[in-house]
């Protein structure tokens, strides 16, 4: 991964709608190089372009990182369930005695409780740990200053 590619990625991480002409001016990289590099990156190194939201403003006041451990037999089913659940923002497979960490977004604690109760009933969660997110201090900050 060369410096020019990392610079392009850095700019797109800061603002994925920034025009290549603007990035070219700031970096001194020819626009044709940026265009070709971007084409190579899309679909491989770049997985998605999205907007980050203030969920509190949208009425979602309960966000959490939920760590889950489930019996091996239920692992696939739980994974599929979480993948389709509307209140799940992100899922990561993890180790160190756990299976998943899930970022959940709900309107209130009651909705989160209902979500977790259902998981327990259907998939027999062996252990869970909840960390409620009070404030986003930094989000998607890696590589913005390569």
């Amino acid at each position: 991964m060369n410096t020019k590619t990392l610079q392009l990625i850095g700019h797109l991480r800061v603002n994925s709608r920034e025009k290549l002409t603007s990035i070219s001016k700031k970096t001194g990289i020819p626009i044709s190089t940026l265009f070709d590099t971007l084409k190579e990156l899309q679909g491989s190194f770049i997985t998605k372009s999205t907007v980050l939201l203030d969920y509190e403003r949208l009425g979602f006041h309960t966000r959490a990182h939920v760590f889950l451990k489930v019996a091996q037999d239920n692992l696939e089913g739980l994974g599929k369930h979480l993948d389709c659940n509307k209140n799940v923002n992100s899922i990561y497979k993890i180790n160190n005695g756990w299976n998943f960490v899930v970022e959940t977004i709900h309107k209130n604690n009651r909705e989160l409780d209902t979500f977790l109760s259902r998981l327990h009933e259907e998939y027999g969660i062996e252990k869970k740990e909840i960390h409620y997110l009070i404030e986003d201090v930094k989000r998607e900050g890696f590589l913005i200053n390569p």
Partner: protein
Amino acid sequence: MNEKEWKIISHLRKDAQCSLASISANTNIPISTVHDKTKKLQKDNTITRYTTLVDFKRLGFHYHTKIAIQISHHQRDDFLLYLKTRNCINSLFEVNGGFDVMIETLHRDIKEHLVFMEELHEAFEIIETKEFQIINPVLQESFNYHPNIHR
């Protein structure tokens, strides 16, 4: 948040690089309205940023973790400031449930990660940490529904 605004957000969540013309065509919202609503959502900080998600492993960053940290109370503000400026940190949240912060870190290998953790312990009075190594992301930034908006 009205239905039009949510439709626009929904499209941008799936692809933040899509053109306003494309959003207009897919939602039947006039392009001028899409433009104005998008500007409003940015101005009032409902949309905080447009960003690109990348495959960190493919870029050579093989050691990916989430770490819950409990810090000595009087160092909390300095600790947050310190973490905000660390390049290896992808996300940083203030949390409760016995810990103060949850960070997501990325390093090329475990050696770099251990150096980072050692620096952290040397600089601050860390009371407790809990580390979870991420094997792979399954889903990222996928939340895209509003229960009050009927589509």
